[in-house]
């Protein structure tokens, strides 16, 4: 299969692993391994699916970053989505994997079983088509994701505005990658040595959100593709920079990403959205200017307004968010590389993919869920 097989070629992988071993052996000796963080959940999934972490030499390890949009979705947003889906005239459209995320009173899948109206869609455009086809139904799109999903959402809203559609709205929890990275890097105990940048976010944003990492923290960033050869090549490029004490942004994913990004994709986002004052992140708490909200001209498309109409007050309107995950959760320690998923006391016991307590267990792109699915009690894990 074109664009896939050549980037999964076992011979190419073996060659890269050899080069990584040579390069890693040339790094200055250390007591603890060199830590490389892959920021994006898509990368985390590839690493576990292909066991790439087990191909690395002992002095290199992957730390799994905060870039899984499903994992970081706060429970309060799921609660709101369920409340909307329960309205008799409303159809809640969602990406598939958000359906399983538990709110405070269950997931959208469970709400569907109780009679709520939900529909899995593949793009906001599908939700817009639903609104066209069912003029008597209020269609709400649960808009989640990073800079990658924001452009399509913005275009759908603009198309709805142009068509004068009044039965299409979005429940918006679009977020940006730079604020959580800044929050992580501000931790003085953080040991991470280099970053694997999210190729599909960069396709839209260019290098801009990551420039502070080399500039302010003198750590290298390599923007990477999503196949095994891409990721291992990115590791090699990071090791080269580390060996020479360099810190700059490099693009490995040249077939897709550029330093300037895609202006055409950013333009509709800037036209429709503006940064909101505060956004809630599951596992990370409240981060200023980390989420997008509709500009005043497009507020008519805000589904949260429907909730304010209802007799129950909307949870987002509360000044303090509801208490998040279980206080015993060690998600933040896993995110910053201080703990491996399996070292969390809740992992695999009280916290599993079917009943996640912590953010990283929620989606298969979360570090803990991926670890559980591919590694739990697995061959390299030893008997429990």
């Amino acid at each position, binding site marked *: 299969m074109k664009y896939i097989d050549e980037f999964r070629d076992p011979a190419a992988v073996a060659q890269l692993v050899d080069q990584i071993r040579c390069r890693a052996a040339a790094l200055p000796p250390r007591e603890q391994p060199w830590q490389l963080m892959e920021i994006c959940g*898509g990368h985390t999934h590839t690493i576990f699916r292909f066991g790439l972490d087990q191909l690395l030499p002992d002095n290199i390890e992957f730390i799994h970053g905060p870039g899984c949009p499903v994992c970081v979705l706060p429970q309060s947003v799921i609660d709101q989505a369920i409340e909307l889906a329960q309205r008799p005239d409303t159809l809640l459209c969602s*990406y*598939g994997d958000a359906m399983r995320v538990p709110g405070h009173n269950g997931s959208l899948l469970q709400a569907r079983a109780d009679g709520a109206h939900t529909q*899995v869609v593949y793009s906001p455009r599908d939700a817009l088509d639903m609104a066209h086809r069912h003029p008597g139904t209020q269609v709400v799109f649960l808009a989640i*994701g990073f800079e990658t*999903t924001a452009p399509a959402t913005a275009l759908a809203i603009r198309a709805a505005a142009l068509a004068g559609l009044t039965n299409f709205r979005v429940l918006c929890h679009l977020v940006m990658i730079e604020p959580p990275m800044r929050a992580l890097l501000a931790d003085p105990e953080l040991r991470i040595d280099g970053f694997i940048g999210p190729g599909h976010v960069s396709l839209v944003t260019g290098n801009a959100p990551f420039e502070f990492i080399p500039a302010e923290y003198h750590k290298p960033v390599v923007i990477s593709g999503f196949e095994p050869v891409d990721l291992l090549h990115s590791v090699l490029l990071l090791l080269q920079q580390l060996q020479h004490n360099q810190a700059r942004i490099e693009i490995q994913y040249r077939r897709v990403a550029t330093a300037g990004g895609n202006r055409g994709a950013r333009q509709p986002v800037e036209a429709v959205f503006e940064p909101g004052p505060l956004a809630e992140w599951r596992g990370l708490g409240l981060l200023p200017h980390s989420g997008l909200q509709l500009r005043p001209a497009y507020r008519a498309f805000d589904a949260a307004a429907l909730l304010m109409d209802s007799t129950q007050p909307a949870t987002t309107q509360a000044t303090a968010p509801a208490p998040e995950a279980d206080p015993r959760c060690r998600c933040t320690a896993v995110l910053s590389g201080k703990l491996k998923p399996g070292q969390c006391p809740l992992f695999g016991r009280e916290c599993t993919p079917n009943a996640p307590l912590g953010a990283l267990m929620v989606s298969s792109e979360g570090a803990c869920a991926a670890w559980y699915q*591919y590694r739990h009690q697995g*061959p390299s894990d030893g*008997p*429990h």
Partner: protein
Amino acid sequence: MARTERISLAQGSGGEPMQRLLRELIWPAFDNPILARQEDQARLAFELRPGDQLAFTTDSFVVTPLQFPGGDIGTLAVNGTVNDLAVGGALPRYLSCALIIEEGLPVDLLQELCRSLAEAARAAGVQVVTGDTKVVPRGAADGLFINTSGLGVIPAAIDIGTHRLIQGDCLIVSGPIGDHGAAILASRQELALHGDLRSDCANLWPLIQTLLPNPGLHALRDMTRGGLNAVLHEFAEAADATLLIEEHALPVRTAVRGLCELLGLDPLHLACEGRLLAAVAPEQAVQLLQCMQAHPLGQGAAIVGQLTPRRNVPVILNGVYGVERTLAPVSGELLPRIC
């Protein structure tokens, strides 16, 4: 424009409209002497020899959409039940067929599906000898649900099943995996995907018949709901073994892989409707593989793994880079990933 004739609740009421539906549409499709007696039960003359066993199975079919590339709910309702008999070594003989029709289903479509079901039964050499027809109000079903039960005979000499699984057994799949699941996903309207995806829906008995004489054949399962992964877990559980699967050996069509890459799904979890997994004695594995490959239903057969001593997980996948990983059972619905 002519108004589409649709099934009404009256046709399920037991009166004249229902009699007409049965007389004009249902019975002609399944015409056979046992059904033609119109008794409340099918009367079957079985000649069993000592040691022969009756095999009896049932399955309900609720697929959406009702028609899809490579088949429809009618072919599925026959082949699904026939295959459940066949993987036990039973020669399929008789089927029951119960239709639960949603009010409003176009009569033409019902007729087409009944003909398709009857044709699949004829091709499989089984007779539909008893049945039932119900009509439920709009919204109480999804177009058409079908239940079929099947009767077959396992000859005294045949003994295959999970009780015969033993460490060292080789695992053979009879062809590319995930075709049916991928075809269904792609043909759902809301997906609007087009590609060369066809259900593998087929009667497996002719293939199984060629394998049965080989004493090295230990167990067979058709890989329907939950795909290959579900059957691997069933085998592992039954044999108290760990199944070691070689990822590079798994046959998957390019179109199915493409769909899975696009949606973030795994072909191991997608249903097949015309493929089986065989556990066979290692010394007979090559012979049985060649036997499968020589049959049109088993051309794409491949040895994919082996039963090994029980470790701490039931199924382990040896990846293409030589790294082993756990193959977890599917938890709940298959949902596409956002990125």
